[in-house]
């Protein structure tokens, strides 16, 4: 019986090739998208869970002061014998900014991205595997450096790295005492080089409070199994003299929570975006719903088309159970085919997941096992839903009505179908609107005034303790295409100094860039008031930005001073227009340009004239190499650099667009399917209309009208929903684009257009058919 049913089901599938392909293929694509989103969601929610002891690892942070960079001296306190603490370590990070490690022997240079400063305890807390070591421990001695295996092979090749001298960015000098295997991929932080922060000189950050200097760093502990974080935090707060360490009151943050945490503490760890995750989840659910609705409509339509066949079967002895069995087999066949296709598609698309989600999904078996059951349940539910609905229909209908020749009840089940279709159309309209707005905002943000002239502006990274800045600038000035150069410590996009200073009595946090001569000219910054720096202003004057002026609450700036303490006292001589110096999400913060000559500046900004940029870079590089052959030449254009800040949002935009396209395509398939069935069932009616004088255009209009009504309804529902969602999203931005009415109108028109094309394409044939043919099958 099952075998026969299978054959019959298969033949039925083939009979309606186009429709079946459409729905099954569509479902496969939608399901594959859901699988990918599900895997992404799983990856994001299991960050840091690949560390063996992740459940017991916590980071300490100061609740009142809202920060996790605490005095290094908290470390000995934590290790001093709390029963709940099995192990503790300090952990500080330096990421990105063109770090280099040099093999002192061979002068071989390798660039790397992630530097950690910590103690031996780190390796055991985070279960880091040591490949080789000098003496069994990762660090042995005050100037220990541990390097990762990949760095080891890049820097030392086949040589043994252990015991070799290395120089990190001309700042840290040490000995390689061990080689470690890289941290698990799905983690919120990475490590290329690890240095021993027992050595005060190896600590990465310094700060001064009330005249006292100390090193802020993260602190991690491994708690004893079963201890409640809350209890230990209380114990810690009660027992220690934290005030002396400039700490207010402490709490514990679980390692698992760091990535998606809602806490606002500034952290160097990779941060996932829980909002984004929710968006993807919503889109994934939407796509699943759309595909399922399509499939349901398909099943129901097929059922109606086969009413005749079902009736016949009933006349010669088929019971409800037999018909039910057949329905289940038919549905299972279709869904199984879809699922297999979906798995294949997902497998093919996996390597490209980076462009969709911003990170490559690395999938292992246990990931699949975690996500699998959910999708299995979805499949089973779908099969049930899709088989029960036809069975329900079957039980309700009367054989005689159709045996006598009529072609399927029309206006009964239409309400269901129409509301489902309206839902699909609403989702599509909303998605189209959302995509348009996202792109508008992105382009707005990219092109809105940056406050300084980003074009043709080059940024050269000056290594630490570089001696030849003056010589370099002289040589560069000789090049015909160099208009101006200026030295600074920090720059727009890389703020190195955020100082709290005394502003006429108030203590405020201000971002600072230490600048040398010619800065405003080189950068193309504009003054709102006051004047720019003159030679006599050296170490005496500063400029502030409009936001700082606003926040300081001054009426004018004449005579005002900005006092950083320790003898650094600057007179404010003017106001510069706001320019973006951080990711555009944040509102513009106060900024001060301090004219100190920036002799120890790490950025040389070079203003170029138009010309062949490639050649210009070549010449500049030659100049660099002629002056400092042993230093790596590292540069970037300001506009490229700013572009890269938007990379994440651009990826978001493109992936949302991608998935929206899938959703819209699914809706189109749904529409196609429906119009397909309508044409089938209304063949006779159309034929009669044509005989009675209807023109092709009139028939087309009649068929299209039903759908247009739905689109309008869908649009009316979708517009406010999309508006609301986008308002909330735009709150993330300091600079928002306007949500004009024309955006919604455009979305509506696009939706309408797509619907018209889809419907007309299919109904064209029905409308132009020879009515005689249509009426023949009587």
């Amino acid at each position, binding site marked *: 019986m099952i075998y026969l049913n299978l054959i*019959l089901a298969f*033949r039925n599938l083939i009979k309606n090739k186009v429709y079946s392909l459409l729905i099954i293929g569509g479902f496969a694509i939608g399901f594959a998208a859901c699988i990918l989103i599900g895997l992404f969601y799983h990856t994001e929610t299991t960050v840091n869970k690949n560390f063996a002891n992740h459940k017991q690892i916590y980071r300490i942070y100061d609740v009142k002061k809202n920060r996790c960079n605490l005095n290094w001296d908290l470390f000995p306190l934590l290790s001093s014998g709390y029963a709940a603490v099995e192990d503790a370590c300090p952990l500080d990070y330096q990421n990105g900014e063109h770090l280099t490690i040099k093999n002192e022997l061979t002068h071989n240079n390798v660039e790397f991205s992630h530097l950690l400063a910590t103690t031996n305890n780190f390796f055991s807390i985070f279960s880091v595997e040591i490949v080789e070591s000098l003496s069994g421990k990762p660090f042995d001695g005050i100037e220990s450096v541990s390097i990762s295996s990949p760095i080891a092979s890049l820097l030392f090749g086949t040589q043994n790295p252990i015991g070799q001298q290395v120089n990190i960015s001309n700042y840290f000098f040490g000995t390689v005492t061990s080689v470690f295997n890289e941290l698990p991929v799905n983690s919120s932080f990475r490590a290329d080089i690890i240095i021993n922060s027992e050595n005060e000189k190896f600590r990465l950050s310094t700060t001064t409070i009330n005249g006292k200097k100390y090193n802020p760093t993260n602190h991690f502990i491994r708690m004893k199994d079963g201890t409640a974080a809350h209890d230990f935090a209380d114990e810690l707060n009660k027992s220690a003299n934290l005030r002396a360490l400039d700490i207010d009151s402490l709490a514990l943050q679980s390692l698992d929570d760091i990535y998606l945490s809602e806490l606002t503490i500034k952290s160097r760890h990779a941060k996932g975006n829980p909002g984004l995750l929710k968006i993807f989840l919503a889109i994934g659910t939407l796509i699943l719903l759309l595909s399922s609705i399509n499939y349901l409509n398909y099943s129901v339509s097929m059922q109606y088309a086969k009413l*005749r066949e079902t009736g016949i*079967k009933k006349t*010669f*002895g*088929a*019971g409800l159970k037999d018909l039910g069995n057949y329905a289940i087999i038919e549905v299972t066949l279709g869904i199984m085919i879809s699922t297999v296709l979906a798995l294949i598609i997902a497998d093919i698309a996996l390597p490209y997941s980076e462009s969709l989600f911003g990170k490559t999904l690395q999938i292992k078996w246990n990931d699949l096992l975690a996500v699998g059951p959910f999708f299995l349940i979805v499949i089973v539910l779908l099969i049930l839903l899709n088989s029960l609905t036809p069975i329900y229909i079957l039980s309700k209908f009367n054989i005689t009505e159709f045996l006598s020749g009529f072609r399927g009840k029309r206006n009964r089940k239409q309400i269901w179908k129409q509301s489902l279709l309206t839902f699909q159309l609403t989702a599509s309209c909303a998605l189209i609107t959302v995509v348009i707005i996202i792109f508008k905002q992105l382009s707005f943000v990219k092109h809105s005034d940056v406050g300084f002239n980003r074009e043709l502006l080059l940024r050269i990274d000056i290594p630490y303790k570089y001696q030849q800045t003056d010589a370099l600038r002289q040589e560069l000035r000789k090049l015909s295409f160099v208009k101006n150069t200026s030295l600074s410590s920090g720059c727009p996009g890389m703020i190195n100094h955020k100082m709290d200073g005394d502003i006429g009595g108030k203590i405020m946090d201000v971002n600072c860039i230490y600048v040398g001569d010619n800065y405003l000219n080189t950068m193309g910054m504009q003054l709102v008031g006051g004047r720019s720096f003159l030679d006599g202003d050296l170490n005496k004057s500063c400029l502030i930005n409009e936001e700082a002026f606003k926040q300081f609450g001054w009426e004018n700036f004449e005579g005002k001073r900005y006092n950083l303490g320790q003898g650094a006292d600057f007179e404010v001589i003017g106001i510069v227009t706001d320019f973006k110096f951080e990711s555009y999400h944040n509102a513009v913060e106060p900024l001060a340009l301090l004219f100190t000559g920036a002799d120890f500046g790490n950025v040389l900004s070079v203003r170029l004239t138009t010309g062949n940029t490639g050649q210009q870079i070549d010449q500049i590089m030659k100049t660099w190499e002629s002056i400092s052959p042993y230093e790596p030449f590292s540069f970037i254009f300001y506009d490229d650099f700013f572009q890269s800040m938007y990379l994440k949002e651009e990826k978001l935009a493109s992936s949302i667009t991608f998935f929206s396209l899938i959703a819209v395509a699914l809706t189109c398939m749904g529409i196609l399917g429906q119009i397909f069935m309508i044409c089938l069932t209304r063949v006779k009616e159309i034929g009669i209309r044509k005989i009675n004088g209807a023109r092709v255009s009139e028939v087309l209009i009649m068929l299209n009208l039903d759908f247009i009504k739905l689109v309008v309804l869908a649009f009316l529902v979708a517009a406010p929903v999309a508006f609301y969602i986008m308002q909330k999203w735009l709150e993330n931005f300091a600079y928002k684009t306007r949500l004009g009415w024309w955006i919604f109108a455009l979305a509506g028109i696009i939706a309408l257009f797509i619907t018209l094309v889809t419907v007309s394409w299919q109904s064209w044939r029905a409308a132009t058919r020879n009515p005689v043919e249509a009426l023949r099958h009587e």
Partner: protein
Amino acid sequence: MIKLNNIYKYYDSKFQRTFVLKNIDLEISEGEFITIMGPSGAGKSTLLNIIGMLDEPDEGEYFFLDRSVGTINEKSRVEFHRNYMGFIFQAFHLIDEMTVYENIETPLVYKGVKASERKAMVADILDRFNIVAKKDLFPVQLSGGQQQLVGIARAIAGKPKLLLADEPTGNLHTDQGKQIMELLKQLNSEGITILQVTHNEQFAKYGSRIIRLVDGMISSDERY
């Protein structure tokens, strides 16, 4: 075998009651070959459907083999269809996705006949009707007459007691029609009760009794 008492069938709409069948009293014995005739809209097909348990009367009693079956549940009805009745339609109503063999086989599958027995039974019928060579063809590949042949084959595969034919020759031309009627006559002589609805006076004469319906009521009932 069949006893109809006071059968009424009507449709109510707004303020009107339209009668399709009015006060039908009918007795049919086993082995008869009956033709039901009448103008269009007289209620012939409805009467046939009621007798064939595809429809239910609104009033009156229907006894089949001395059991009251006017209103029976789904399960019992299915039983009757499987074991006692076969249907032949004007439009043949074969399942297009099944081969000739499968079409004939299907009622047996529903009856629960074992596969090997099924094979034997279907082979028998194919043989009898001389369509063995066509057993793997699909209905769309057969002519009208051949399709009706398959329809009849399917209807008698389960050896029913009663055969109900609704305009069996309606879609066939005269020669094919004659062949079908000859076949029916032969089946009747083998003991199957046949009830047919037709417009064709000539084909009506194959039966032994003609019942004429006019406006839902029996106007005449003649035996030959």
